[in-house]
């Protein structure tokens, strides 16, 4: 569970305080799927960095799983990032010299897990995103969608309770983006809290709840995007999801098998950067 109280973040720029986040209050329950929306420069990325323990608020209290994050030292914060949070970035952020498998192994190296178990678990995670057959490829041998799937495998390999995705579809075409979003939906169904940062209503509509950030403040939805439009998008996805679901059991592989067979070809194209 994530609880933010009176979170303020300001930077000292040219001798003046630039306030990026003003008095944010936000509670996200375990298992929620939340989108944080807002235009560029609204402070949504800063908010995400604070939730992800990459940044510290100037003031205010952040409780992560009932624990005050400001009490943690550097090393403990690294531990939180390693164990409790999985990051997915717009630019995938895979290490170019490492294979897909080695990239997925990384969080486990820092968790101090032995080689044998690492490889097993990394293979399982890649299997889950449907890329087991490409695990020995370098990132530049993978398409944009495949790269993001490797990044998702890396984010879930330590079984975190929260996945933070910063514009995860921003560098992908619409179709591939949809596949990635379906994947987050399924991960959320398995109980993982998914927090999505985006400026696209289409992407935000996958979430159960959308939070809007404008000028460093949380605002109501209508000011940013037509509420009705959003509701319409949401119902559309919901019905699509129900079509995907077979009983209660959901498997990520099914999503990819389906999309790939639907197209008859590879479901993704190389994203432009």
């Amino acid at each position, binding site marked *: 569970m994530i609880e933010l109280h009176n979170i303020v973040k300001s930077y000292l720029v040219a001798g003046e305080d630039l306030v990026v986040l003003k008095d944010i209050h936000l509670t996200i329950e375990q298992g929620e799927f939340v989108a944080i929306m807002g235009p560029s420069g609204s402070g949504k990325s800063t908010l995400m*960095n604070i939730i*992800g323990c*990459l*940044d510290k608020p100037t003031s205010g209290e952040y409780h992560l799983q009932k624990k005050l994050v400001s009490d943690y030292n*550097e*090393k403990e914060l*690294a*531990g939180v*990032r*390693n*164990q409790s949070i999985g*990051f997915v*970035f717009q630019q995938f*952020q*895979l*290490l170019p*010299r490492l294979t897909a498998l080695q990239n997925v192994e*990384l*969080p486990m*190296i*820092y*968790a*101090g897990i032995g080689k044998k178990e690492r490889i097993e678990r990394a293979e399982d995670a890649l299997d889950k995103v449907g890329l087991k057959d490409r695990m020995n490829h370098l990132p530049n041998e993978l398409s944009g969608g495949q790269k993001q799937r490797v990044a998702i495998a*890396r984010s879930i390999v*330590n079984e975190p309770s929260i996945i933070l995705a910063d514009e995860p579809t921003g560098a992908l075409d619409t179709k591939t983006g949809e596949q990635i979003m379906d994947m987050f939906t399924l991960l959320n169904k398995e109980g993982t809290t998914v927090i999505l940062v985006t400026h696209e209503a289409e992407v935000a509509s996958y979430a159960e709840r959308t939070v809007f950030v404008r000028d460093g403040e949380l605002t109501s939805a209508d000011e940013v995007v037509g509420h009705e439009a959003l509701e319409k998008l949401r119902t559309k996805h919901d019905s699509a999801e129900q079509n995907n679901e077979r009983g209660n059991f959901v498997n990520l592989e099914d999503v990819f098998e389906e999309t790939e067979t639907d197209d008859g070809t590879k479901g993704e194209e190389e994203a432009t950067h």
Partner: protein
Amino acid sequence: MSIFESIKMAFSSLFAHKLRSILTMLGIIIGVGSVIAVVAIGQGGEAVLKSMFSGEANTIELMYMPSDEEIEADPSILYEDAFTQTDIDMIESIPEIEKVVSSSTESTNVRYQQESTESMVIGINQAYIDVHGLEIAHGRNLVAADFLGGSRAAIVSEEMKDELFEDGEEKDASELLGTVVYMNNQPIEIVGILEAEDNFFGLSMNSAYIPMNTWQTVFADTAITEVSIKANSADELEIAGEKAAAMLNTFHEKDDAYQILNMEEIADGIGKITRIMTIIISSIAGVSLLVGGIGVMNIMLVSVTERTREIGVRMSLGATRGQILFQFLVEAMTLTLIGGLIGMALGSGTALLVSHFAGWQPLVSLPVIVGGILFSMLIGVVFGLLPANKASRLDPIESLRYE
């Protein structure tokens, strides 16, 4: 994260930039290589010099060195003969002494027909040949009969032969045997020619050896200039020398004019000189290591900048600042360690090659090798610390955004 993982990571990132890594290592390779070569060659040379000065065949030299007080009291003391045959006979009676080697040297004119040369003529006793051995290339050595009878026979060096006979028609060396030359205007027959000396320092002399009795007749001089003794065993050498010196001092009523040449002091002196030379050359090599270390630091700083995003990613995945610091430190250390190992191989190879050609004992000692390895690792730590620290201080958010 285990050390093994860090080393593996370091290798893979060094391997990704092979040329850069090799060029960076070069400074360390040259530095470590030259230190090891210089120290090994220095120690080999020192051993050779010491063995040269500590006297061949376990001998110790007796010296006639009147002290300043004695010279002041009686200046004529300087003109007295250092040693006489009586002295030799006397110290031969000391039980610890096996042989007393005596020789006298005079520089004089040696003439053959129209040719003449300035040469060292050395009078020797039989013990001299027994102890030092003269390597004869042609003819015969001096034998007991020559010494007892004081025969006018000489063994000449290759150089003297060349000086005296080079202008004449090319003669076979053996044909020169039996030729009579004039030393200090006294006829002497050449009975043997020495093996051409071919030592490392190129010290070959124009010289002739004749029996001591003959020398005393030729130069009308009873003085013996050099005396050295050979003891029954190496352990007794010092005692034998001291006994001989004491006996001579007592006999000649001197305080301390007769002394033994203290080999240890000389050896220490030589050691000091070679050590100083080693230090000087090693400091130059040290400068090369310093420059190499700066090169490592430079390339590591470049690497940190290049890999800013990687550092950001690693931090977001849960790497602590300590782990990032360690990773880059291990990388710098791996770089210098590999450089050190290559340098060591090259340095040892050079030292072995030099000692092979100089005919020395190869002296690449274990402490030097271990020291070299540790030192190259230390360079990695020292010069890797700044870049590694820079890497660990990066802000993960900024780093993730870095293009």
